[in-house]
């Protein structure tokens, strides 16, 4: 099985975020890490390869620093990597990122594309689904388990309220993987050493520019929500207070 894993570099979860001057995104001087759901997508891909053989290829779009994500994927066991390298990729919306990735892999025949369910920074949960549409493949979202079955795959989807759905799908397909579905492996020292010699193909912005369209989504302004506190004292006799309180909880706050 030839598997592509889409990975994104995002600001570290515990990094204190500061807005940039135009208040359209966070400042560049933060620490970065692999988007967590993508790390689980990589883990799922590596496990599939261990069971069924094949190849795992990691792909990422972003500036030079994003290569760290790919090196980590290679150190953990991916066979090769594709880096769409340009600062401009950061400005693209999910649709265009999907277009860029589809263009970058047009000469490859993958059986399966895995992405994280969503990114920890923008949280659109769009790239994987849009990529499936562009490729004309089947897709499924919020996947917790994948196994090869009869030339296709069988997946477990997470639904709401603790329900799950088991789906059998044909290949090729795109799956978006849920975070926290197992234990992530560590990069071993041997893996880290080997990663240095694994192939990493760079794709420039120009190579995929023809496939891109104007962004349909742009961020106008970001702001940190203001914390406000309001205290209201309900007055009256105990029974009046109770009545008013119930009314507020039911009609205003809708918690009962």
């Amino acid at each position: 099985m030839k598997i592509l894993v889409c990975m994104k570099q995002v600001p570290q979860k515990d990094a204190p975020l500061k807005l940039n001057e135009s208040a359209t995104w966070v400042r560049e001087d933060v620490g970065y890490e692999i988007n967590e759901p993508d790390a689980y997508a990589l883990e799922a891909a590596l496990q599939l390869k261990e069971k069924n053989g094949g190849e795992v290829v990691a792909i990422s779009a972003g500036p030079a620093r994003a290569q760290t994500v790919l090196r980590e994927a290679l150190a953990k066991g991916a066979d090769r990597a594709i880096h769409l390298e340009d600062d401009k990729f950061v400005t693209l919306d999910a649709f265009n990122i999907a277009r860029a990735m589809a263009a970058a892999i047009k000469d490859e025949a993958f059986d399966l594309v895995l992405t994280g369910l969503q990114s920890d920074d923008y949280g659109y949960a769009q790239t994987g689904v849009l990529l499936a549409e562009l490729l004309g493949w089947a897709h499924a979202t919020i996947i917790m388990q994948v196994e090869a079955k009869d030339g296709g795959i069988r997946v477990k989807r997470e639904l709401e309220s603790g329900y799950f759905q088991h789906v059998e799908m044909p290949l090729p397909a795109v799956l978006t993987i849920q975070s926290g579905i197992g234990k992530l492996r560590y990069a071993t020292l041997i893996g880290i050493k080997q990663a240095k010699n694994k192939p990493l193909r760079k794709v420039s912005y120009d190579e995929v520019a023809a496939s891109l369209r104007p962004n349909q989504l742009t961020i106008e302004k970001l702001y940190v929500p203001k914390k406000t506190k309001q205290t209201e004292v309900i007055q009256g006799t105990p029974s009046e207070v109770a009545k008013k309180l119930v009314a507020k909880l039911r009609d205003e706050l809708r918690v009962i």
Partner: protein
Amino acid sequence: MATTATAPQKKIVGGNFLIEETNPRDVFTPEDFNEQHQLIEQTAEEFSQQEILPNADRIEHKDFAFSRELLKKAADLGLTSVDIPEEYGGAEMDKVSSAIIADHIAKQGSFAVTFSAHVGIGTLPIVWFGTDAQKKKYLPLLASGEWVGAYALSESSSGSDAMNARAKAVLSPDGKHYVLNGEKMWITNAGFADLFVIFAKVDGEKFTAFLVERTFPGFSVGAEEHKLGIRGSSTCPLILNDCQVPVENVLGEIGKGATIAFNILNVGRFKLGAAAVGGARTCLANSIKWAKERKAFGKPIADFGMVREMLADIAIGIYAGESLVYRTVGMMDAATADIEKGSPDESKLIRKAIEEYAVECSIIKVWASEMFDKVVDNQVQIYGGYGFVEEYPAERAYRDSRVNRIFEGTNEINRLIITGWLLKRAMSGQLPLLPAIKKLMDEVMAGPSFAEEDERKLATQRKALENAKKIGLMVSGAASQKYMQQIADHQEVMGAIADIVIEVYAMDSVLARTLKLIESQGEAASATAVAITDVYFSEATSRVEAAAKKILADVAEGDMLRTQMTILRRLTKAEPVNVIAAREKVAARVLDAGKYAF
């Protein structure tokens, strides 16, 4: 925030920092970590956070089966075999990687000690001195964590003076075995280790190392010691009662045990420094968290100036410690870069190259263990009453830190090594210390000069460092003149000279790193590093001055003393730095990040 700058290539002479002005570009810093180093750091850090820290209580309760399991897990990732050649099952990487692992594994004192005893003193003697057959037999077992290693040098009546060991080895009549008798004390990992490097005197004279398996007849392990700290590590005596060791298990040459013992300690010392830095980083993260949570007078104690001062001091200790440790291992890597991998004398050449930096290793050991003790002390203070009870992490860290000033050579022994080594190198001409002293004396006798003003970055700090080096040379010269060959008998003077040398190396490393940062990231982005440098220099120059006074008062009197004090005053004259504002800048930065973040 690491850059992809290429690591410095220049081969540096050990002890050179004392004589020459350092070019920051020749100095390796954490900002020079390459992609591999960063990935190793991440693996070690994640392993510690996910596998070690959540199990700290199990480790502390001496669940040795668990500690072994943890060691095995670390070995599966290659974390235990970074210093072992690939052909013997190791991951074989550079010393920067080795220090990164020691640094980031050190999140929990007991396990850090278990781990470092295994990979360092338990394994390295075989890597460096073992025969091919010994390496083939033991290294794969140690690299994979199937076996645990230990090292037995000290005895109840010999510690720092290890050569006075009483353990004895006698060749059996059939010439097949050495028969060992005696005892060893304070042996880390003894409770569960499988292989011991044991030192004993052949025929009561020739100090020699032996590889002793736990199952050899006549070998036994005594009861666990009840210790002040690192209680989750195993420390026991060994009993050798007609212990039979095959002749092929002699490590190195008969009578050359001292070479093994001293060489291994060099690595043990820089790794101890790295581990102290790692421990301090954990203390800072805990202290910040606590200072933000704990409220007094209606606000978090993180808002109070004196608490912020303590947080800043911890961060400054980490920055300086990183600068010292990574600079030194960077020098080792530059010095070993040309050694051909897999060549028959590879291990020997690496060992020799590391030996060149013996004095730097001793400096790191002393400096970092004393830094860490101040850090854990500050942490207890920040936690207040909660710092004094077992339920919070400050209390254990306080106890665990203390042993660092004792093992791997006490700090007193290391101070003697530092001064003794430099004076020895000076006498033999390997390090041009004497010409440097002469030049300085001519210069000061000529009176003050009116050299052009230094317009480079951090010119004041450069001057202070240059003067500290001069003070070091001046007092070394004065003390040598007074005591000549007998100087070694004046331990207090030797110790005070070491104090100056230690500070010079620390200042030199801190300044080089900060200058490099300014060059790569600009002044605005390096503001915190400059603040750290300001505070460190201010404190260090006071310590240098105090040590110099102590020495001069002992070695000179009358007019001579007055002249030397005049020179000293000239060399220490400086405007006071606003350390309150500088510390505040550092504290604000780490509180904002919630951890050590540079």
